[in-house]
């Protein structure tokens, strides 16, 4: 200090405070480096997805097929060929094209997943059957804008911290015809 008026603080609590602040800084740094995704600049995107047994998977698939087949034609989710829709096959090429479309759009954020939405190619008036398709888009971590609004949004955690980016893709091939092998058994 240039003058005789020195800054005065109680020493013991001040040193303890500095020690704990250092510990806090270490904890924050450690947390950021240990959490996957944060090291390369992105927040980890949590997902409830986990590996399940084949037996359970087949049970789920069969439960769905039984439920669908118990419905009338107007309610059953079907392929355009009129068969019960079992699922979709998403090609690696399509995924690569989605990634490429995000990169081309100038997005510097990592692609952390894909949003898969249900669509219906024709209006209900033209086609009353429930033959549906999918609309797919890549997702990136939600960008944090400047200002308090963005800070505030991160408190509530009402929504996953992701947002869609890049082009939209459709014609995700239905199963049947594009079924994996072995395909889910018919009920």
């Amino acid at each position, binding site marked *: *200090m*240039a*003058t005789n*008026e*020195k*800054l*005065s*603080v*109680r020493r013991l*609590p*001040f040193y*303890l*405070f500095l020690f*704990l*602040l250092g*510990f*806090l*800084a270490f*904890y*924050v740094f450690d*947390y*950021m480096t240990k*959490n996957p995704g*944060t090291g390369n*600049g*992105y*927040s*980890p995107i949590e997902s409830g997805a986990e590996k399940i047994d084949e037996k359970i998977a087949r049970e789920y698939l069969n439960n769905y097929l039984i439920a669908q087949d118990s419905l009338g034609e107007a309610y059953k989710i079907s392929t355009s060929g009129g068969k019960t829709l079992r699922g979709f096959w998403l090609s690696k090429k399509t995924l690569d094209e989605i990634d490429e479309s995000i990169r081309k759009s100038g997005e510097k*954020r990592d692609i952390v997943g894909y949003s898969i939405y249900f669509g219906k190619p024709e209006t209900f008036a033209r086609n009353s059957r429930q033959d549906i398709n999918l609309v797919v888009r890549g997702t990136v*971590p*939600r*960008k*944090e*804008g*400047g*200002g*308090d*609004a*963005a*800070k*505030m*949004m*991160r*408190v*509530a*955690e*009402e929504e996953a911290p992701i947002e869609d980016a890049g082009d939209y893709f459709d014609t995700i091939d239905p199963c049947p015809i594009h079924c994996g092998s072995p395909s889910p058994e018919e009920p």
Partner: protein
Amino acid sequence: MTTRFLIYLTLLLLVCLLGLFQYKRLSRPYRLLTLFVLVTFLSELATRYFARVYVNSGPVYHLYLPVQYFFITAFYGNLLPRWKTALSWSWVVFVLLVLVNAMLYQSPLHFASNIILLSCPVYILCALLSFRNMLSLTDERPLLRQELFWYNTSTLFLYIFTFFCWSFYNILLKSGNTVSVATLTTVMYVLGLQYYIVTGIVIYLDARHSKKKDEQ
């Protein structure tokens, strides 16, 4: 970077430069206030870096909030000698609470709003005690020329509103009332601006007061 954030940063820089240029003339508490504005400016710059590189500025606030608590309570500790010891030990308690919050409730990637809710009542209490202290001290200057009067008023305005804003924020967000959320954000921004403008004014008033005293 948005225009309003740029205005905020510019204001912080101006107040900081004003304090640093007058630093030798300033009395002890106002030196702390100058350093506080400097730390705030650096911290806000760091948030932009984190937002750009890590897409998350949460970690900065986990470190900034205890530092802010230290400076504001140290400022009031210098003005309220009877409370100095209690306020000093509260730094240790506060930083421990920040640690617990970061470990258990709001991770470093989330904005530490719980900590703001803890700190605001302390700042409000300090401002009120400082007002009471002003009544017992004899200052010949008119009230409106006294820097503490302005600083305490500004502190009360900012932190009372901030406390209630963060208390009800999640409820408003859950109700989907985005208009109210945006309005709250704007009011907080304006109150933040007034706080740092007033801080600049009080630093200037203290420097001028010290100069006059030296001349006498």
